[in-house]
């Protein structure tokens, strides 16, 4: 049982390092507080873009979002869930990071199912399909939207 845990953690840590490097251009890793105790807590080390290692609580809003999504994607690459639903996860991201995350979701969605709620135009354009939700007289309705880019290819 201990074996299973360590193998799982090692794989997810490896994924985390890769994903974090790709989206935050920095060094990130996952480590147990006490490497010999699988009941101990899991620590996240994260240095976005070559900054000095900081307590993850001291990261900015956008950096926390990137790190949290890197963690999610690291687990996905090890053992994907049947679907992912992300509700406005790009709220704290600047334009550059919004693009990185939208492109990573686009890439991962070749194999995994993603349902994403967003206000961001760039993310919307990455979607394979887009549903517009609107409200009239207190009732919601849903319309399939076709984006010009989609017709082109």
């Amino acid at each position, binding site marked *: 049982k201990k074996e299973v845990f360590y193998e799982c953690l090692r794989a997810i840590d490896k994924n985390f390092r890769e994903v974090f490097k790709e989206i935050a251009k920095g060094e990130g890793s996952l480590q147990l507080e006490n490497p010999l105790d699988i009941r101990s807590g899991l620590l996240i080390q994260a240095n976005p873009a070559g900054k000095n290692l900081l307590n993850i609580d001291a990261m900015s809003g956008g950096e926390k979002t990137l*790190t949290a*999504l890197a963690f999610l994607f690291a687990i996905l690459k090890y053992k994907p869930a049947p679907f992912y639903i992300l509700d406005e996860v790009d709220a704290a991201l600047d334009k550059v990071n919004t693009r990185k995350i939208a492109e990573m979701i686009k890439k991962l969605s070749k194999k995994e199912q993603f349902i994403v709620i967003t206000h961001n135009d760039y993310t919307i354009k990455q979607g394979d399909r887009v549903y517009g939700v609107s409200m009239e007289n*207190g009732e919601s309705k849903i319309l399939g939207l076709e984006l010009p880019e989609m017709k082109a290819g």
Partner: protein
Amino acid sequence: MQGFKSFRKRVSIPILPGFTVFCGPNGSGKTNILDAVCFALGRTSTKSMRADRLHELIYHGNASIPPSDYASVSLWFDNSDRVFPLETPEVSIKRKINKKGISVYKINGKTTTREKVLELLSSARIHPDGFNIIMQGDVSQVIDMSPEERREIIDQVA
């Protein structure tokens, strides 16, 4: 779904493989769709669906339209690779709730219990409170949580 929160009329949303996006104005009903999924998966915490009590999830009416009598949400899952221990090519889960807050669950149209639904979902590794569902405002939860809670996520996956 029908009668669930702001979705009074019956609506059916095809969710295909790949990258599906929902967009729209504030308050239009996007997060309500996520709440509907969690509702159908058997979530009991009404607070997590922004309601104090279960009957508040039923369409509550407007100036000219009366409240609905019930809220029901059905989810259809592709079962072509038999990830569920059932022989049907598709598996449907339905939850319906009445004004008294009583829930009725159905699997493939047959009435069953919430426990049976959770058991069936877990065979496909689906969980009403799974970390594969990130609610609005919660994205950095994994950073803010305690190291022990974070390690429990790895436990779940392993």
